């Protein structure tokens, strides 16, 4: 069996590891547009903040490809995929590589709002290693005083954190009404907001940028919907990510918001698999097919894809969105349907002391989502109960109590841990 993997990030690496769990012999070829050894995308903000060295950004040790006998084509782009001939075409190498199993793990690409489409010297993406290498150089050369970050989501706030740690003045512009809208409720977001304001970050909410003021240095000001003008001398884009589809596949892959895959991570074309941010798999909490662009999901999907590509039938039970993000000393963790509201969902929450907020979203005696701010030490147990779809009715009254732990859980759960 020979395998071709397009991509070099989490899902691709997990694909290699999945294949090698089953098939130690088959030839694996890995193709990446980027030239770097596999690195961890979430670490770019840590790199920028000086918390991680370049070497320590590697997602796997330097000998990973050699040890797993992976042939790499780095800095190469796949320009076409032909399921008929089972080949992919590479440029600039200009070769056709044939595969028996293909894994598409091309990840995502940052969304550029229309108003920012243009070539500005001081406009930076905040998505991949090259972006931050570039940004780092600019910060040193241009010494900006005010940096505007477009987007108050996960990436935007991690970018903001790294800029604060570099002693920069940061302005975050969020089109929505509060921070981290995709994973956080208003109460939790308020705490995060309060904390970040204390750290000197400025915020604008509910007002998208409608126009740019430009000058010699590029963007010099942002005009918001209400005509507020925000002066800045550097802009970081963190407005979200969408699936980065590979070039047109002859015969076409079925897509929705990502490439549609079954529970074995196989696409609509047999022999072609997809995993990670480019794929749209099953969300175990929402119980629908939808993209869940998180690293652990990419890993799980990649590994499942790898196992199945190598012939071991392994079904995915779906993935769960969950995150843990420390922001300038404040811990935040969310999981599952953390923003869900509505009649069916009952919130259970507690606050304080200090910047502590914990909330479980319950429905039909199950935990469907959680938001933890400040103290996240027990969050894993609740997430474990979510994964198990555990019936919490017998210990519902103890949920979120300060001593909540195994002791309140049913016997079978305890036995599993002992």
């Amino acid at each position: 069996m020979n395998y071709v993997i397009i991509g070099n990030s989490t899902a691709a690496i997990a694909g290699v590891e999945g294949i090698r769990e089953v098939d130690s012999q088959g030839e694996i070829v890995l193709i990446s547009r980027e030239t770097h050894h596999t690195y961890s995308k979430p670490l770019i903000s840590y790199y920028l903040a000086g918390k991680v060295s370049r070497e320590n950004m590697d997602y796997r040790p330097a000998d990973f490809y050699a040890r797993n006998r992976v042939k790499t084509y780095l800095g190469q782009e796949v320009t076409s995929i032909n399921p008929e001939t089972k080949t992919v075409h590479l440029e600039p190498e200009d070769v056709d590589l044939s595969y028996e199993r293909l894994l598409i793990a091309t990840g995502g690409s940052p969304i550029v709002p229309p108003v920012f489409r243009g070539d500005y010297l001081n406009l930076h993406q905040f998505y991949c290693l090259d972006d931050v290498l570039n940004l780092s150089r600019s910060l040193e050369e241009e010494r900006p005083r005010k940096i505007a970050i477009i987007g108050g989501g996960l990436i935007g706030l991690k970018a903001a954190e790294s800029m604060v740690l570099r002693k920069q003045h940061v302005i975050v512009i969020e089109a929505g009404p509060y921070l981290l809208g995709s994973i956080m409720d208003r109460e939790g977001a308020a705490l995060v907001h309060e904390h970040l304001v204390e750290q000197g970050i400025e915020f604008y909410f509910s007002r998208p940028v409608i126009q740019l003021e430009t000058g010699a240095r590029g963007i010099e000001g942002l005009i918001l919907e209400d005509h507020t003008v925000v002066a800045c001398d550097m802009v970081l884009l963190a407005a979200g990510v969408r699936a980065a589809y590979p070039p047109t596949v002859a015969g076409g892959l079925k897509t929705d918001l990502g490439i549609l895959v079954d529970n074995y991570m196989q696409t609509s074309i047999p022999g072609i698999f997809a995993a990670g941010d480019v794929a749209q798999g099953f969300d175990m909490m929402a119980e629908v097919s939808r993209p869940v662009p998180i690293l652990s999901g990419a890993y799980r999907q990649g590994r499942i894809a790898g196992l199945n590509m190598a012939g071991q039938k392994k079904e995915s039970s779906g993935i769960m969105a969950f995150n843990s993000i420390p922001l300038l000393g404040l811990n935040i963790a969310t999981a599952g349907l953390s923003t869900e509201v509505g009649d069916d969902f009952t919130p259970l929450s507690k606050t304080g002391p200090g910047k502590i907020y914990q909330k479980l979203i319950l429905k039909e005696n199950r935990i469907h989502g959680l938001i933890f701010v400040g103290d996240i030490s027990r969050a894993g147990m609740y997430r474990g109960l979510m994964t198990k779809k555990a019936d919490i009715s017998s210990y519902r009254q103890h949920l979120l109590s300060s001593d909540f732990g195994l002791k309140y859980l049913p016997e079978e759960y305890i036995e599993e841990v002992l």
Partner: protein
Amino acid sequence: MKKVVAIKEYCVACGLCEVYCATVHSRYPDSVLKAFKLSPQKPVSRVFLEKSEQWSGGIQCRHCKDAPCIAACITGAMYRNRDGIVLLDEERCVQCSTCVIACPYGLIKESDMGGRKVLLKCDLCYQLAESPTCVTYCPNEALIWVEEGETL
């Protein structure tokens, strides 16, 4: 792979597993007294004594086959070594705590080491020739080190 199993029928809830685990992972692995008296911060255990009215047991990382913490680790610092032990490379860890929420048993803990946050988990004392320290020092053999699936 050999794992530590807690036998709740014989756990006496003394907490010596925690004391010795903290010691062996401290700067003074051979002396409880020094570990607790001389360490700049109170030594922290990676095994946790869970107590209720009905039972108690020293619980710790299960070194899961399909480890959620490895899948979730954003840096690759969480890895499985050749013996199957799930380990955290503290050099590479950026303390994002994703493993804390990934672990379904809540067995990876954040600890404050004098203002520096660190994440700690059981390493089965893999550098030691003998059994894990908590097993060695369990006074009532309520922690045992056995091959998976081995019955008592």
